[in-house]
């Protein structure tokens, strides 16, 4: 059972240190979704913050923000701050989930067909 993992009592302090005191995602990370795929576009460099390095390593193949958060044990907001650094430096690329396009028009039929045939193969 993947129940909620309680953060340790000093969790907030740890996050404060990790993010250099920055809160909430801003700029390039403000549109990050839990299903956004992150892909590394550069290798880790010496002296890089451990968490940044870890993100680059784990995202050699595309990985969702939600999976990254689960693997690194970081809440969404904190991870978004770290991802913003990497996005701004061009070290990762973010691919938002393909949206249900425009209100009233719904997602593209070809995409739905693709999802449907994938599900039918399960």
């Amino acid at each position, binding site marked *: 059972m*993947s*129940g*909620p*993992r*309680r*953060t340790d009592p*000093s*969790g*907030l*302090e740890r996050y*404060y240190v990790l993010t250099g*005191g*920055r*809160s*909430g*995602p801003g700029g390039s990370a403000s*549109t*990050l*979704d*839990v*299903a*956004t*795929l992150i*892909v590394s*576009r550069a290798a880790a460099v010496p002296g890089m913050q451990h968490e940044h390095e870890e993100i680059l390593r784990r995202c050699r*193949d*595309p990985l*969702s*923000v*939600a*999976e990254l*958060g*689960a*693997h690194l044990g970081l*809440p*969404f*907001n*904190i991870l*978004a701050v770290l991802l913003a650094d990497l996005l701004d430096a061009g070290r990762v690329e973010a*691919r*938002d*989930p*393909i*949206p*249900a396009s425009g209100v*009233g*028009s*719904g*997602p*593209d*039929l070809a995409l*739905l*067909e*693709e*999802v*449907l045939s*994938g*599900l*039918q193969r*399960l």
Partner: protein
Amino acid sequence: MDFKGFDHPDRQTDGGTRSVKVMIAGGFGTGKTTMVRSVSDIKPLTTEETLTQASADVDNLIGVADKQETTVSLDFGKIGINDQLVLYLFGTPGQERFWFLWNGLFKGALGAVVLVDTRRLASSFRAIEEMERQDVPFVIALNVFPDSKDHPIEEIRDALDIPPHTPIVACDARDRTSSRDVLIALIRHLKERSAVALESR
């Protein structure tokens, strides 16, 4: 496939994999986590948000480290659709009042499955209202528990006030094929909606 935003498509080494997401909503104890678990290719994971982080500015965090945190978690799983496409399934938190915490949790979702326990219809009212309010297309999945009474679907449609075009299907969330069939019902529903939208253009 949409490659919008790729400045250097030739640099892609991963084939440009993209994602889509589907939300699994419903009241507390209706089987959301069970469904995510039964149909996921990976062992389901949990991602978290801490309420204090979301609601307080950093300045306010100093000195509140001993404050009681509310951790809200989101169970999720994934299904590889093909080499280029991954479907993520997110079970919404039981406490609907926390749904605002994630950057548009429902925004960008293809649609949602709203799980209903027919023994406790009212527990899913809030989830249905929320889908309607946020204009998220959905199907209703009646999770059949061993002691569930056999209710005619139309009776349940009336009781939940579900419009005629919204599918209602029965399922066993513990069963992979049954849960997959609910997802198939959702995608078919989305296709119909898209087709109708195209015709009426």
